[in-house]
Structure formats: C-alpha cells, structure tokens
C-alpha cells in the first residue's frame, strides 16, 4: 500500500447560530466535529451513521462545496482546504459527487446529455460534437443509449437517472467519487443493479470511492473499509468484514442490530437504542453516545447490571435536561387508585425501568434520596444528588480514538496522524526544505513567535538528531513511543523526511497504521479486548 488519495484529518464544519441584526453568534451547530479517515486509490470506503449525524456535511465540506471550519483535507499530496479558486476548479475536475435524490439532481430544463456534458463544458471543452461523442459513449457504458442525449430527466426512471448521475460524475475522469446515499431513493430491485454498476465502474477505472449511507447492507455490499459516524464524530473505523463480524463500539453494534436479518433464530438479538439523537448544537459532554449507549460504564464500586445502570442513567439525564413532569405522574398514580410520595417514586422507577430496589445498597440510598427530592419538587437538589451518586466515565471524559493492536494512547495516535497528514500535504507542493517547513510549523504553533529567532533557527537547523527531536516536538509525538512497531515506523519516516523524501515518509506512516482498526470508546481504553483475528 502507498499514500492514500484522500486523507481527511480532524475535519470540522460548524454552522454559527446567529441572532439579531448584527448577527451575533449565540451558538454553533457542530455538524462535523473532528472527522478523520483515509481513502486509498481504487478503494471503497463507507461512511455510515444515522440521519443527521453529519455524513453529508462531511462529504460536502471535504469536497469544499462548503468551506470547512477546521481540519485538513489532503487530496493527492495537496491540502484542499487552502485552495484558491483556480486550484479549486482543478480539484473539482478530479473529485466528483453523486447525490441521493436522482430527481432533484438534474435540472428539469436541461437535457440529460447536456447535464452529463456540463462538467466537460465547465472545464473548457468547446467542441459540441466532441462533447456529444464522449457523453454518448459514456451513456452507452452505464447501460443507457447514446440516443438518450436529447431526452429530458422526467422521461427517465429513478434508477436510470442514477445511472446518468454516475455518468455525469465520471465524464471528466475523476480520481475520487463521493456518493451520498447513492441508492437510498431507489427501489430495492434497482438498488442492486446500481450497486453492481458502481462496483464495475470503480474496478474498471480504479476510482477511489467514498460511499455515504445509513444502510449497513449497502455498505457491506460494496465497501472495503467502513467509518461509523455518530453526531459529527467518527466512533469506529476498520475493514468492513471485521467491523461487521466483530463490532467494537456499542454504537456500531446497535447499528448492525438495526438491520433486519433473514434468520429467525437470530432475530431480536440486536441491541435497541433508547432515547433521541441529541442535537449537534448542544452535544452531550464526554462521549457523545453516552446518553443512549447500552454499554455505558458504571463506576467500579457499584454492583449493578448494565441494563439497570442504563435505566438509572436515563433517569438522571431526564432529570437534568427536561425534568420530570410531576403532575402527569401524580395523575397516573391517582388513576391507579394509589396516593402518596412512595407511589409516585414507584411510578417514576417503573417508567424508566428502574427496579423497585437497586441491588447495590449505596446506590439505592442515593437514588431514593434523589427521587424524594424530585417528588418534593426540588429539582436542583435531585440533579446534584444524582450527579454525585451516579457518575460515569463516559460523561466525564471524551474517549480518544485508539488503534487496535498498537500500544498507543489517543493523543499519541492523533499526533502521529497530524504528522502524517502534514507530510502528505507536502508531497505535491514545491519542495521546501525541512527546516523552512519546520519553522513555518513552529511559528504557526506560537503566534507571538519572534521572527528573527525563527530565521536563526531556520539557518541553524542543527544536527540530524536535533532536527528529529524538533519535528517530534512540533507535532507532539513523544521522543519514544511505547509501542515498538509504531516507534520504528515513526523513526523511519523521520529519516525519510530528513532526506527530504516526503513521499516515502508519508507512505511509511500510512503503511504502518492504516490497515488497523480504531474505535473511540472508553470500553476499549479501560478493558482492551483481543486484537482482531485472535478469536
């Protein structure tokens, strides 16, 4: 394997929420909040997640259809986020997109031939006959007829339109195609045809393909690797088969459980998610999935089952966010012919599936005292008591992304990735000296940097060992990584870098880490399971 065609590093897209005439920013919708993945040449990568998790925004911002708020997108050795208009136009020729709704993605006033020829025209092919010949040939190859050139979109079925959309994406011979839910608007019978066509076209032209989908079936069908997204973040990545056979993140597990299985014996085994998807304008602290996670981690000193813990946590979150509608509960209780605060707390427990008495005595004491506060109408006290008694690491800390089979913590892995992305972004640029690049990087890190000292440091690059140390320092990579393989890869990449062979340096790092799986979950960090393939 070599350097991937696309490396997305910590991509962010926030939409400001503004108010008033002066457009004062009062909040942000974090649609995409630190998404990283790579796509190799000729590879199909799936980006999956529920509706509204930011998959499509990630796609449009990595293609620069919207300006990303932060992060890097390195496409074939150049950083796309820094492109000016001319470079962007060149990039547009090499990266194309297919849209979900085949109907709205065609201008009703333009014949499909013209629509397919549009990219050719935009990129300066003046000759009508030439455009016609190319488009006719391509329409033929995606299973339509060259004579369809002059027909209008409404004369085609959804499946045919999606074929035409594929032709439009291919017509300028791109290296990367991003397909946003390419088949979800189609009949199931047509879906298979389109997926086969996509696969055929991809292998024929060696395209890199990023497929965005909420349909695990589609992803399993065509993707080599998968990245699972939840609420603007990637929670797990890895090769498709491994993810499907052995999901590491509870969310992936739940997603897989949500696809119907044609096997009555295995029916009903999937975990079902409770609660709603939180709003990306106010994402939950810590692990973003903890409000719905079936495997949310209880503190060590409590002896409760995971289902009970989930129920207690649901209760806690409800009290914190909306509060409990006491009147409704009391009404319900009187309807059943009961009365008194005990009946009310009982009803609340019942509603949240919390057992009448928790098996753990300490927990039980805390819960009943909190519930008493709820019944007494003292919400703040209840919130406080619940928070103190039922902490979870999932809410306290944001889980980092951890590689499987490497003894690296999340920060080290992020540092290596940012070094890698930076190296990749140098590959096609005019070669600069390492020292100059380093100085740039360092002064970018320290805003108040003294210019003259920068220049001095640039000239006085120091011994190779010194320079290695400075590179590591600039990217936050520790001097000695705990993991042997990782340390060897980084050291060899640094050697290549010092001999100004960025290509080799980047390739070394990609080769060493990319085929690995990674997941962002406290379960992974605290209780590492077996490495993949060991079962």
């Amino acid at each position, binding site marked *: 394997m070599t350097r991937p065609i696309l490396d997305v590093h910590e991509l962010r897209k926030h939409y400001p929420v503004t108010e008033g005439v002066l457009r004062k920013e009062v909040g942000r919708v974090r649609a995409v909040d630190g998404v990283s993945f790579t796509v190799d040449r000729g590879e199909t990568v799936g980006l999956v997640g529920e509706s509204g998790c930011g998959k499509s925004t990630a796609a449009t911002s990595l293609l620069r*259809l919207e300006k990303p708020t932060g992060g890097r997108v390195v496409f074939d050795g150049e950083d796309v986020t820094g492109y000016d208009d001319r470079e*962007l136009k060149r990039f*547009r020729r090499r990266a194309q997109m297919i849209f979900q709704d085949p109907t709205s*993605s065609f*201008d009703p006033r333009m014949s499909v031939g013209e629509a397919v020829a549009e990219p050719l025209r935009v*990129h*300066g092919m003046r000759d009508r006959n030439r455009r016609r010949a190319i488009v006719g040939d391509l329409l033929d190859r995606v299973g339509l007829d060259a004579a369809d050139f002059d027909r209008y979109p409404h004369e085609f079925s959804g499946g045919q339109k999606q074929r035409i959309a594929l032709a439009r994406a291919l017509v300028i011979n791109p290296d990367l195609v991003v397909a946003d839910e390419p088949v979800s608007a189609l009949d199931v019978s047509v879906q298979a045809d389109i997926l086969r066509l996509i696969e055929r076209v991809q292998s024929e032209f060696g395209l890199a393909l990023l497929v965005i989908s909420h349909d695990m079936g589609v992803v399993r069908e065509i993707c080599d690797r998968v990245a699972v997204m939840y609420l603007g973040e990637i929670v797990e990545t890895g090769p498709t088969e491994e993810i499907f056979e052995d999901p590491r993140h509870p969310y992936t597990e739940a997603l897989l459980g949500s696809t119907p299985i044609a096997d009555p014996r295995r029916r009903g085994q999937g975990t079902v998610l409770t609660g709603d998807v939180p709003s990306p304008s106010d994402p939950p602290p810590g692990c973003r999935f903890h409000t719905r996670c079936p495997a949310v981690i209880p503190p060590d000193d409590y002896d409760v089952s995971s289902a009970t813990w989930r129920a207690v946590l649901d209760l806690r979150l409800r009290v914190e966010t909306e509060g409990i509608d006491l009147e409704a509960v009391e009404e319900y209780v009187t309807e059943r012919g009961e009365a008194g605060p005990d009946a009310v707390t009982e009803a609340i427990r019942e509603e949240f599936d919390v057992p009448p008495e928790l098996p753990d005595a300490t927990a039980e004491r805390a819960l009943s005292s909190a519930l008493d506060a709820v019944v007494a109408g003292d919400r703040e006290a209840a919130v406080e008591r619940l928070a103190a008694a039922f902490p979870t690491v999932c809410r306290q800390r944001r889980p980092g992304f951890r590689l499987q089979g490497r003894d690296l913590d999340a920060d080290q892995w992020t540092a290596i990735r940012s070094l890698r992305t930076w190296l990749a972004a140098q590959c096609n640029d005019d070669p600069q000296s390492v020292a100059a690049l380093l100085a740039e990087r360092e002064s970018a890190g320290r805003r108040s940097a003294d210019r003259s000292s920068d220049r001095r440091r640039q000239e006085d690059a120091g011994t190779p060992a010194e320079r290695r140390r400075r590179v590591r320092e600039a990217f936050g990579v520790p001097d000695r990584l705990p993991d042997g393989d990782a340390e060897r890869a980084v050291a060899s990449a640094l050697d290549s870098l010092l001999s100004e062979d960025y290509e080799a340096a980047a390739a070394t790092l990609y080769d060493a880490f990319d085929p690995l799986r990674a997941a962002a979950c406290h379960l992974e960090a605290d209780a590492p399971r077996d490495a993949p393939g060991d079962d």
Partner: protein
Amino acid sequence: MSADEPAETFESVDWDETGSRFSTLSRRDRGAIASLALVAAAFGYDYHLLSADRPTLTWPIRWNVTQLDWLFIVTLLALLFYVAVPLYSNRRLTAHYWAEFRKNSLAVVSLVYLAAVFLVGVVGPIFLSKPQLALAQSHQPPVYTAVNAAVPVNCLGDVASGMCHGTWAHPLGTTSDGKDVLVLVVYGMQVSMKVGLISTLLVVTIGTTVGTVAAYAGGLVDEVLMRYVDVQLVFPAFFLYLLLNYLFGGSLFMFIVIFGLTGWGSMARLVRSEALQRSEEAYITAADSAGAGTLYVIRRHLVPNVSNSVITAATLLIPGFILFEAALSFLSLGDPTVPSWGQVIAAGRSDLGTAWWVSTLPGLFLFTTILAFNFVGDALRDALDPRQET
C-alpha cells in the same frame, strides 16, 4: 462520427488544454451578443456620425431611426433570441406547452389577435405615412355608418336624406382634424407595443438579474440588493415623470425609460423568492461540484428555472404599461408628437355626442388588447405552472 474511426471517450481527454470562461456561452448567447454588438455599432454610427435630421436609412424606405426605435430593435432581438429561438429548438417542450395552452380557446383567439396587433403595429407604420392634418375631411364617419350631414365639414361619401355615409377611403372615419382613425389606430398599435414590450424587457432583464444574483450570492449582496429594492419600491416614479415632463416636455422614450428602470422591484422580489427555492436543489450543487462558476450557474440553471414565473408575470406587466401610457396620454401628460391611443381617445372626447367613433374605436382596440394580454397571461400561467411539472 464515422464508424471506422473510434469514438473519443472520456478517458482519452487531455485535461491540460484549458478553456476560457467564454466557452460556457451557448451558441444562442453568442448569436445574441453578436447581434447586440451590431446594433450598438449601427447606433453609434447613427448617433455620432450622421446628423440628427439625416435619415438613417434611405433604402428601401426612408427611416430616421429614433432612440426609441433602437430600443425597440434591441427588444425585438431579445424576443427573437430568448423566446423564439428556444421555442424552436426545444420543439417537444414547445409542443407540450402549446397542448396545455390551447386548452384555453379564448387565450388562443387572444394570442392570434395580439400577433396581428404586433405585426400590424410593427410593419404598418413603415408603409402608412403619418396622419396629416386635413381639416377639409374632418369627422368622416366609418364605413357602413352614417351621421347627420352637418357633422362633417365636407362629406366624402354619399349623402342621402341628410345623412353622410362613410367611405372606404376612411374605413374607421376621421378625427376632427381630418386624420384617418385607422392610421391612428395602427400607429397606436406600434406605440402600445413599444411601451409594453420595451418597458417589460427592461423590467424583466433587471429584475431577473437582480433577483437571481441576490438569491444565489446571498449574504451581504442579497441584503444590499434587496434593501435597495425596498427603497425603490417606495420611490414615486410618477412624480419623477411629472417633473421631467414639466422640465423637458413629454416623450415616450422618457416614459419607457423611467417606468422601465424603476418598475423592476417587485419582479426582482418574485424572482428572488423563486430562485432561493431553486438554489437549494441538488442540480445546483452538482454544477458547483463540477466546478461551475457563479455566472454559469445563474445563467444556465437559475434563470431557465425561474423563467416560467417571469414569463407569466411579464405577460401581465405588458397590459399594465400600455394602460398606464394610455392614461397619461389621455391626461395630456404623454408625448404630444406620438399618436397614441390614449391621445386619440382624449381628442375625440369633446365630440363624443356627434362623432362617437373618434374616441370609441381606439378605445375598443385598447380594451381588447389589454383583455387579450390578460387572457394570454392566465393561460400561460396555467400552461407553465412549475408546480404541475414533475
């Protein structure tokens, strides 16, 4: 493509050849630009090199082209390139619209009538000389009618039992100045067409441009353009016209320019709201992701897709302008040198008791023309309604 020569495919394209932005212009756009340049050159020649009193053309007819005529030529060119040519080149779409349109038979009759008015109005004045003052033949009645022989000074037709009968020499009779009403009506057609079409063209062009640019660019551009529209909509163009009319005297050119240049506000709003909706469509994003620039997207996607609303609104704007011009002429606020319908109606008003035809006949033409435009506009709205399209 000959069969033995392998067709070019998309993989074989060498993308290092780069095109200029003009390559995105269609043949129609290039044709329109070329003819516009020709007209501009001819105008420059006429305006700067020929003295004002020398006629621009001496062959085949003597025609001193006025500023208004130049504008009318540009309008006709625009109609040719952006209405007639697209209708011709998208014949299947045209057939579809026509099938929808002809469901309304009243509108078909109206369209035929308007076509006749348009053709007669454009061609007629070239062959008919301007009506001249001829007091000797004043107040001749229309053909097949008769008035008391005392009304005309000198009855040209048969006089029988004290009644003067109309003749074919003046089929619609004459005015108190002895001007032929038919000739006046034909000249009035041209005036009405100029007023209706040129002002509407100005409104449509500016309104569509501002509306689509505001919608697609968004942000500050949108804000500035739309707030300007707000200001313009409260601007009393009528009083500006009165003022200029008082200062420089009435002229049809001034009427058209003032009301054309200040009347596009609501058109811009309409277009903007429509274009805002369209710019959310995925085909716009698809064009973006193909690398298309702002101008290209507006020209090739937004404008064609808002054109239905624009055309419908325009067919209802035209009668408005015609009626307004007639009203101003009737109040003697118009161009005294131009024989517009409103002016003839006003001229015949005092003689309504004796010579009823002077006011009535041009009034009838005004009435039917306005009515026909309204019918056509309604039928067009039904035929083009984008909500019915799939």
